[in-house]
């Protein structure tokens, strides 16, 4: 099943990033095929969040290339990359606290409307019509994560699990092709993690490609087609879950020494 190059949604080659003296990421290379669920794991400080930040445009890499849908997006600013179809969530949520749940998701739909300052300020009909459409789209995204009942609540009223879902709904607003989840299962109770897994499958059915950075091993093992393991900024393993689980390098990285 040799996949031709442009069947890979995301293609990362030799990606490196350092901050001052710290080499957060060195020479990371792999590809994400369309419609798959790929996960990245690794001990703390391995460079997983840096990776997400670099791909999504928050940081500019020092070396290497990122190709998305065949196009070179290396070093482009975050909002440009987002508009091209890469969405993400944040480990620390980064929700908009002064907006309600629905409004948070509507921000996600920002790129799907065009009304400018003047159109909005003068409340032109075109702007109002777009607003209505965005509201509907946002409600759809909320419904997908099961939160339509909370649409008008302020963020502070939601527990962590629901806030994470808002983050996902928000990223969905852009109708991205690739969705990167940064530690989505962190801090969630068991049933919430199950719900998350179901949601992820649902999203893949709808045509999304998922990239998940996670700590929660069972969660990751059960979902992913392939797993990438990072340690100290370098890729030390890649393959289907069973292979990775048995890989000695991986075990060493996590436990710090060989397990006899």
């Amino acid at each position: 099943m040799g996949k031709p190059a442009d069947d890979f949604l995301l293609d990362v080659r030799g990606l490196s990033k350092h901050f001052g003296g710290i080499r957060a990421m060195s020479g990371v290379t792999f590809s994400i095929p369309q419609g798959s669920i790929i996960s990245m794991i690794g001990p703390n400080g391995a460079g997983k969040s840096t990776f997400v930040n670099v791909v999504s445009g928050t940081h500019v890499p020092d070396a290497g290339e990122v190709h998305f849908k065949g196009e070179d997006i290396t070093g482009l600013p975050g909002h440009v990359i987002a508009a091209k179809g890469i969405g993400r969530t944040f480990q620390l949520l980064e929700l908009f606290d002064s907006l309600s749940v629905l409004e948070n998701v509507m921000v996600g739909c920002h790129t799907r409307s065009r009304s400018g300052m003047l159109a909005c300020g003068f409340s032109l009909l075109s702007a109002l019509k777009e607003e209505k459409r965005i509201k509907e789209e946002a409600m759809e995204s909320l419904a997908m994560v099961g939160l339509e009942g909370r649409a008008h609540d302020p963020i502070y009223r939601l527990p962590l699990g629901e806030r994470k879902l808002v983050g996902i709904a928000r990223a969905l607003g852009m109708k991205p092709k690739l969705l990167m989840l940064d530690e989505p299962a962190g801090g969630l109770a068991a049933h919430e993690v199950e719900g998350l897994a179901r949601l992820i499958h649902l999203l893949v059915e709808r045509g999304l490609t998922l990239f998940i950075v996670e700590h929660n091993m069972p969660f990751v093992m059960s979902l992913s087609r392939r797993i990438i393991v990072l340690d100290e900024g370098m890729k030390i393993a890649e393959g289907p879950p069973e292979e990775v689980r048995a890989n000695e390098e991986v075990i060493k990285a996590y436990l710090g020494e060989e397990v006899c």
Partner: protein
Amino acid sequence: MNGAPQSKLLWLVSIVAITAIPLVAGSYVVGVMCFIAIFGGLAVSMGLLLGQAGMFSLAHPVWFGLGGYVSGILALRGIAPPWLGSIIGAVFVGFVSYIIGAPLLRLKGYYLACATFGLLLIVQISLGQLGPLTGGHEGLMGIPPFSIGGFVLETDVHYYYLSWALCLACLWFLYNLMDSRMGRAIKSFSDSEVAAKSMGINVPQFKLKVFTLTAVMASLTGSVYTCYLRFAEPGIFGFPLQVQLMTMVIIGGGKTLYGPLLGGFVVMWLKELIHMYLGKVLPRMGAHVDALFFGVLIIVILIFMPGGLSGWLDRLLDLGRRTFGKTSG
């Protein structure tokens, strides 16, 4: 989050009230209210910049002053009547603020404040130094009054309606803006810039647009102001004005759009009261006694009521809404 039926009623009531005031009150009140429209309106655009968009710019009086000077100079030299001069001034200010804003807005927090403060002083000093053009330290005198299609605005009442029309128009525009996708974007990047960017929002561009927009509004207000006074002088457009605007924003509350206008109302009337009662006791002081008083007031409010009056009002309303009905959209 701006319940539509309620605010339409509120708008109607306010407009009626404002229109009615000159009919029932004397020229003193009208004069004060006129200044409230001007400075309160200025505070509103500043409040947007500071309170909602999170940009701490100390340069607002710059746009106010430039607008006033441009339209004043053009009118004085007979090049353009004030209404046209205001528009030219607004375009000029829009242009300048766009160019200056681009590099400036990359600065964060304190640094932006310092840089814009520097800008403020530079402009103020320069206005005073460019004698032949701007009338130097004494300023421009005898600026012709505003006239629209032959009708010349001469009395306080005329300018009252003009300034309130401008103030309310700006307020209306801003309300629409904040209720739309642009407003959401603005609130989003002041909450979390990185998340906003990941949603495709070009944050630097946005900040620049908001900056320019508020500058243009300030410029228009400035043109009306100098026409009203028939006079412009560098001293008006300096740091004390900025502090006064900030006072209005703080007292009224920076998180809402109407807060600074409310703050303007409170501040201007308090000033009148101070002058009435203390003016006899301390005849020489003027602006600095105000500064003292308002300094204390700012400290008190920032410590005990950080959301300002409107923040407090909004919480009351919220409480009322929750007690008497569901919180629905």
